[in-house]
C-alpha cells in the first residue's frame, strides 16, 4: 500500500513516527489489559503494568465460576443479539435500499427522507418510550426487547441504497425483465449477488454496533440472565469498584469480551475498507 509505481519519493521519517505514535496510543490500553489479565490479585498491584503475570488461567477459572458462569451466559447473549440482530438488519436494509435505488415510484423521496431521519433521533428519546411500549406488550426484560429495536438501522439503509445504485447496472435488470424474469427472481439472482460485498460491510457494522450497545439493553433488561457483555461488565464494575478483589474478574472479563470482535475485525479486514461514505467521488 505504501509504494506507488514509478518515482520513489524519499521516506518521510516524521510522518511514520507520528503514525506509529498514534498506533502506540491506540494499542496501549489493549496491551495493558492483555498483561493485567494474566496477573494474580497480588501481582496486579505490585508488578510492572506491562509485565505478564502467572494468573491468567486462575483468573479465567474464577470468572467462569462467578455466579455459576454467568459471564459465559452474557457472552452467548451478546452473540445472539449481535448475530441475529445484524442478520435481520442487513436483510431489511438491503430490501429497502434496493427498492429505493432501483425503482421509481410515488413517494420514494418522502419515504427515504423519513427513514433516514431516524438517524437523527437521539437514542434516549427512543429508548425510554420503547421500553414503556414493550413493557405494555409484555416484552420488556425479554430477548425481544433488545433484538427488535436493533433491527431497523437507518444508516444501513442509506449505505444499502448507495451500494445498490453503484453495484447493480440498470441494463442487467432491464434485460432480466425482457426475458420475463419476475421481480423477486431478479432480486435473488441479480441484485443480492452483486450487493454481497456491501451486505457483508453492513452486517459487520451493525454487528459491532449491537455488540457494543449499552443504553438499550441497560434500559430494557432487569434480569442479569439476559444481559449482554456490556451491561454485565458494567454491573460487575459497579459492584466491584469498592472491592479490589473483584478487579481481576472485571479485567479478565474486559479482555475476553473484546477478543471476538478483534478477531472478527482482523479476519474481515477487506470489508472494513469498502467505500463507507458512498460512491460520491467516483464517476
Amino acid at each position: 500500500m505504501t509504494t506507488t509505481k514509478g518515482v520513489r519519493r524519499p521516506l518521510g521519517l516524521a510522518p511514520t513516527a507520528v503514525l506509529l505514535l498514534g498506533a502506540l496510543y491506540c494499542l496501549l490500553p489493549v496491551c495493558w489489559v492483555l498483561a493485567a489479565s494474566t496477573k494474580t490479585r497480588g501481582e496486579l498491584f505490585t508488578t510492572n503494568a506491562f509485565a505478564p503475570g502467572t494468573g491468567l488461567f486462575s483468573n479465567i477459572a474464577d470468572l467462569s465460576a462467578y455466579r455459576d458462569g454467568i459471564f459465559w451466559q452474557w457472552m452467548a447473549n451478546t452473540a445472539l443479539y449481535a448475530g441475529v440482530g445484524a442478520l435481520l438488519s442487513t436483510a431489511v436494509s438491503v430490501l429497502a435500499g434496493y427498492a429505493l435505488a432501483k425503482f421509481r415510484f410515488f413517494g420514494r423521496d418522502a419515504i427515504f427522507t423519513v427513514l433516514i431521519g431516524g438517524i437523527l433521533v437521539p437514542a434516549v428519546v427512543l429508548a425510554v418510550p420503547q421500553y414503556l411500549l414493550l413493557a405494555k406488550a409484555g416484552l420488556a426484560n425479554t430477548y425481544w426487547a433488545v433484538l427488535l429495536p436493533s433491527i431497523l438501522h437507518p444508516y444501513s439503509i442509506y449505505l444499502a441504497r448507495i451500494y445498490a445504485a453503484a453495484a447493480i447496472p440498470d441494463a442487467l435488470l432491464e434485460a432480466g425483465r425482457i426475458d420475463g424474469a419476475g421481480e423477486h427472481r431478479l432480486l435473488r439472482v441479480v441484485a443480492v449477488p452483486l450487493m454481497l460485498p456491501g451486505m457483508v460491510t453492513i452486517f459487520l457494522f451493525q454487528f459491532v454496533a449491537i455488540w457494543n450497545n449499552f443504553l438499550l439493553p441497560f434500559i430494557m433488561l432487569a434480569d442479569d440472565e439476559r444481559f449482554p457483555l456490556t451491561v454485565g461488565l458494567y454491573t460487575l464494575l459497579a459492584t466491584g469498584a469498592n472491592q479490589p478483589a473483584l478487579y481481576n474478574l472485571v479485567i479478565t472479563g474486559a479482555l475476553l469480551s473484546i477478543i471476538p470482535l478483534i478477531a472478527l475485525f482482523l479476519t474481515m479486514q477487506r470489508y472494513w475498507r469498502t467505500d463507507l461514505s458512498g460512491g460520491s467521488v467516483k464517476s
Partner: protein
Amino acid sequence: MTKAHRGARAHRAGATPYLYLTPAVVLFTLFIAAPIGYTAYLSLRQVKFSGLGLGRKSRTEIFVGLDNYRTAVADGEFWAGWLRVLGYATMVLALMLGLALLFALLLDSARVRLARFSRIAIFLPYAVPGVVATLLWGFLYLPSLSPIHATLRAFGVEGVDLLSPSTVMFSMVNVAIWGGTGFNMLVLYTQLRAIPRDYYEAARIDGAGELAIALRVKVPILAPALVLTTVFSIIATIQVFTEPMTLRPISNAVSSTWSPLMKVYRDAFVTGDLYSAAATSLVIAAISVVPSLLFMRLVRRQAFGEER
C-alpha cells in the same frame, strides 16, 4: 415471481418497491414513530395524587399542558449538563477529527513505512465497546494500578488525580478520542483512496510538495466527508451516556446528571418521573435538530445528486 414486466417500461414498478420497503416502514413505525409520539403524549401529562396519595385510586394521570417543559427548561442542573457536554463535545470534535484527518492524510501520503500496521492499530479501538474502553482507561486512571501514574512519578510529578472534578472531563475526552479516531480516519482514508492518483500529478509537476498537495488538493476534496463525519460526531457526542455512566463507580466527580441524557435516565428510572423525562428528552431532541437538518440537506444534495 408473479408478474413479469413487459417491454422497456421498467420504471412502471407497480407494488414491488412498496413490498420491499414494508419491513423497514413497519419497524420504523413501531420503534421510531410510535415511541416519539408516545413521548410527546407523556410529556404533556403528569401524575396527580389525591387524598393521602395511598392506594391505586388516588393516583390519576392528568393533562398539564407545557408544565413539564417549563420545569425541564427551568432546571439549572439540566443546563449545567449541557454546558459540560458542550465543552466535552468541542474538545472531542476538534481533537478526534483533527487526528483522524492527520492520520488519514499521512496514510495516504505514500511516504510512510508500516502504514498497514498503523492503520489497523488505530482502527482497533472501534472493536472495543464504549463500556469496556471506559473501564480500561478507568483502570489506567487509578493511582494504585496505572502505568500513567508510575510514569508521572518517575518524572517527579506526584499527586495527579485523573478522576477529580477538575480533570475527569479530560479523562472522558481521552476515552472518546481513543474510541472514535480510528473510525473517522477510516472514513476519510477510504475517501482519499477513491481519488485517482494522477489527480495529484499535475500539482506535483507544478512543483507542489506533499504538504501543499495535502492542504490545497486533498483537504478540499475531503470537505463533504469531513462535514459528514462532523455531523455524525456531533450527534454522537451530544448523546454521551455510556462513558460518564461507566466512570461513576470509580469516580465521585461524575454526578448522576453529568450529561443531559443521564438526567433523562435518572428522571425516568431512578426518580420514576416519566413525564419530566419525556419532556426533557424532547428538549434534547429539539436542540440536536440543528445539526440534524444540516445532515439531511447534505445527504440529499451530495450523495444522490448524480442519480437522477
